[in-house]
């Protein structure tokens, strides 16, 4: 051991760390942290409020009887609690997040800064419209971009997320059918087997019946099956189709599909979750689409926030625009913006109101900042780089993994588990990626591919990142092909090992309850 003159060691000695236990439960930088209910007390608070006047109230006796008993933490404890928990999360700011169908791209910090301007973050949805002209102008400006990029005449801005946008589109279709006097007869909605689960769930929420269509050997809609389903057409309400589809492929027959649906008297709902592959290069309005939601939290980079909030503006064709939900923003001849909130005048045919207030304004600001930063030229480059990155991954891994379909992909590369040895599953490969420092790809989706592994790199990853990732995944894939049993135990290096989901579901524990001894003590 090297030492300096005071006897302090200056070079490390090698010791195996695997068996080291700590008294604290912490592991170096990874600090142990309990639940707030185990740390705080209901007498602690981290806010200093003015003293009440203790004046006579006007509650009329409608008062809470039992206290919440919720613990409070002082500010330093609170900050440390969430900081420590944050260290147990993977995030796009930390590393590569190739989650297929989710478009985990970089979230620019400028967008956060803009959303926090008091003129956007600190305005009330019901304050007089004369005092929020800049907010209405922003919504109109974003709407113009979305309409132009899609070549669609109208956009409903209020849907709160992708699935909510699907609801908007399908409710517009429902209303159009009612206006045609066919609301009761046209109930059948065609949905490909490869669709996101939200599609069939949304159709049912709108009172439709789902009829599943098959995928063909190329991963596209089986045109023979589609035509067979359309032979009887007087009950057809429409089709819900993702394009590019969930296999990461462009639907080659999309225009023919649109024509067939329209000829059958139905409408074409396009799930726009994968718009990132074609933004700036292909306009869905040119493909015969009647409605399409746009996930601002995917294509336009508003942060996913650990599961929302999202935002799902939904573009509508001329045929569906009259039925759009209220409210919406219009620009009057005098240049003043106003909100159409009531179902009369130009909104007299509207299907109604989906939500309180006007939509996800905070997401609108972020999305517009993103869009202006890229411009028409940059957005085209976004799509092209996203597609290039996916095809690069596909090309680098096709020799060791099994591509689900032949040919080039769009923005995501899809593999099946055919290359793995018996006993090794897609799940094992995903968990092994965690040990390599990556977020796993989307697993077991789409359902039409066995053991599906869906990899979406997005355009914000460098070639060096992709090369490193491919080297890791190639190594794991070879181990999977050889039946390396150690994969079954992965991850070994994450903050937690594999979790018992069966146990969680069998006897759900959905909130913290005080241990029995505490309850006795409190009584």
């Amino acid at each position, binding site marked *: 051991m090297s030492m300096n003159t005071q006897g302090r060691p200056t070079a490390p000695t090698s010791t195996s760390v695997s068996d080291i236990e700590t008294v604290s439960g912490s592991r170096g930088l990874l600090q142990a942290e309990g639940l707030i209910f185990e740390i705080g007390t209901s007498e602690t608070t981290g806010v200093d409020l003015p003293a009440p006047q203790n004046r006579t109230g006007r509650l009329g006796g409608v008062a809470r009887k039992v206290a919440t008993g919720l613990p409070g933490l002082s500010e330093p404890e609170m900050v440390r609690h969430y900081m420590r928990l944050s260290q147990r999360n993977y995030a796009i700011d930390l590393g590569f997040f190739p989650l297929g169908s989710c478009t985990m791209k970089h979230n620019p910090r400028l967008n956060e800064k803009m959303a926090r301007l008091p003129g956007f973050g600190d305005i009330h949805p019901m304050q007089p419209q004369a005092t929020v002209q800049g907010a209405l102008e922003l919504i109109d400006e974003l709407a113009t971009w979305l309409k132009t990029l899609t070549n669609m005449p109208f956009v409903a801005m209020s849907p709160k*997320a992708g699935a909510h946008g699907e609801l908007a589109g399908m409710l517009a279709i429902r209303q159009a059918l009612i206006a045609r006097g066919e609301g009761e007869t046209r109930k059948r909605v065609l949905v490909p087997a490869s669709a996101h689960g939200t599609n069939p769930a949304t159709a049912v929420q709108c009172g439709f019946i789902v009829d599943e269509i098959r995928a063909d050997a190329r991963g596209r809609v089986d045109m023979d099956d589609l035509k067979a389903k359309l032979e009887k057409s007087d009950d057809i309400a429409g089709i819900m189709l993702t394009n590019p589809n969930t296999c990461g492929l462009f639907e080659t027959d999309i225009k023919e599909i649109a024509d067939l649906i329209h000829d059958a008297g139905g409408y074409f709902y396009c799930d726009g979750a994968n718009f990132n592959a074609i933004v700036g290069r292909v306009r869905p309005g040119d493909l015969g689409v009647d409605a399409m939601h746009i996930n601002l939290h995917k294509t336009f980079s508003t942060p996913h926030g650990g599961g929302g909030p999202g935002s799902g503006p939904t573009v509508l064709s001329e045929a569906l625009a009259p039925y759009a939900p209220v409210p919406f923003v219009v620009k009057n001849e005098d240049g003043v913006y106003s909100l159409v909130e009531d179902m009369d005048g130009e909104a007299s045919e509207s299907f109604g109101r989906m939500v309180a207030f006007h939509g996800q304004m*905070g997401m609108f600001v972020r999305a517009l900042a993103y869009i202006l930063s890229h411009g028409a030229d940059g957005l085209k480059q976004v799509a092209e780089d996203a597609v290039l990155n996916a095809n690069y991954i596909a090309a680098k891994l096709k020799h060791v993994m099994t591509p689900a379909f032949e040919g080039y992909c769009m923005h995501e590369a899809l593999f099946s588990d055919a290359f793995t040895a018996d006993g090794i599953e897609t799940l094992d490969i995903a968990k092994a990626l965690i040990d390599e420092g990556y977020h796993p790809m989307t697993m077991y989706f789409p359902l039409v591919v066995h053991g599906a592994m869906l990899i979406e790199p997005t355009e914000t990853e460098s070639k060096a990142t992709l090369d490193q990732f491919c080297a890791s995944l190639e190594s794991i894939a070879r181990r999977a092909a050889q039946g390396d049993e150690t994969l079954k135990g992965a991850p070994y290096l994450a903050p937690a090992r594999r979790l018992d989901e069966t146990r969680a579901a069998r006897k759900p524990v959905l909130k913290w309850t005080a241990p029995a001894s505490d309850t006795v003590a409190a009584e």
Partner: protein
Amino acid sequence: MRYLPLTDDDRKAMLKVIGAKGVDDFYTDVPESARLGGKVAGLPDHQGEMAVERHLSKLAAKNRSASSGPFFVGAGAYKHHIPASVDMVIQRSEFLTTYTPYQPEIAQGTLQTLFEFQTQVAALTAMDVANASMYDGSTACAEAAVMACRVTRRKKVILSGGLHPHYAAATKLLCEAQGLEVVHLAVAVDGEMALADAVDDQTACVIGQSPNIFGTVTDLSGVADAAHEKKALFVSVFTEAVALGLVTPPGEMGADIAVGEGQSIGVPLGFGGPYVGLFACTEKLVRQMPGRLCGETVDADGKRGFVLTLSTREQHIRRDKATSNICTNSGLCALAFTAHMTLLGDKGLKGLALLNHEAACDLADALEAVPGVEILTPRFFNEFAFRTPMNAEAVLAMLDEAGVVGGVRASRLFPAESMGDVIICAATECTTPEDIEAYAAALKEIV
């Protein structure tokens, strides 16, 4: 482009590995007539950070922020103080830029906060269990109505006349799309108890709100009893979560489902969104709940951990048989809510609620002293309706000129009712005695 790391050399090298001539090769599946020759026409090119910031700052400057003067607008969204540490927490990259926690080994941070959130919401509403959040209060209300119909296998939903009209509209829309009947009782400042008389053997649920849209607080235990007698469910709605620190919560009134808006705790006004819907229910209804749930379990080493659970209710597993089509929830706003609630604790929540109530009482006293003004709300928390001797729209416009944003006119919320002289206004802990003085003085001047 500052957000795109690939260089032209990278692109060339990658195309070579792929064996493609150019990116156009990847788009040959696109029908020829839909291929654009170049970029989309009619849109400007990219801009630097400075230019974008300048443009958006200009738009922001055209809006009057709630903090810039006396401000009394409520009606479902409330101006509350948000501690600086709350915004710091939600801007942590590890929370902000992560996905739904489908890979629990590397998402224990998000999952533990959701578990804590669920526990807090259950305690706040005095209900057994809560989910991991909904889009907002109005969509939570709509989901509660269809859930009640699923549970009771009945098709009739009754809404009180004091329910926030946007909540009523969202609920009506979803229910009617599913072939369910919605009965909306007459709009009334103090009419929540009418639900008790309206419930019948066909009723799936009655939906009442306290504090309601006019600010009226009501003990709805009688409504719950009447509903239960007919084997219907009682859905208890709130739009002001801070109120539950002081007024009777849904669980104490016998609610089967409690839904509401959580914006007041940790989430900025933000012109109406994103917000955070709170959804809680009794233990026996948990498997019929919409939305995500986080549950406790153990990992392979036996250590405590958390996972998303009971997902067999959800669309990605059940598809057309799912309890709801909801996929995304409002994760980051739920984090803001739980972080703020963690700072408050029971003690802080009570104190905050009391400040709100006292500010509203002071405001009512001051406005009541203005000749011709009549307070319509008999019992309130931090919001009430009052009648002016003039048209409310004109009054609000004149108040605006005096620098006071005085509230919402009832006619904007209820265009079909003859409520042209009614204003709904709210006070919170942010309201100062000077704000109240300015409001009363300006109002006195006008009427």
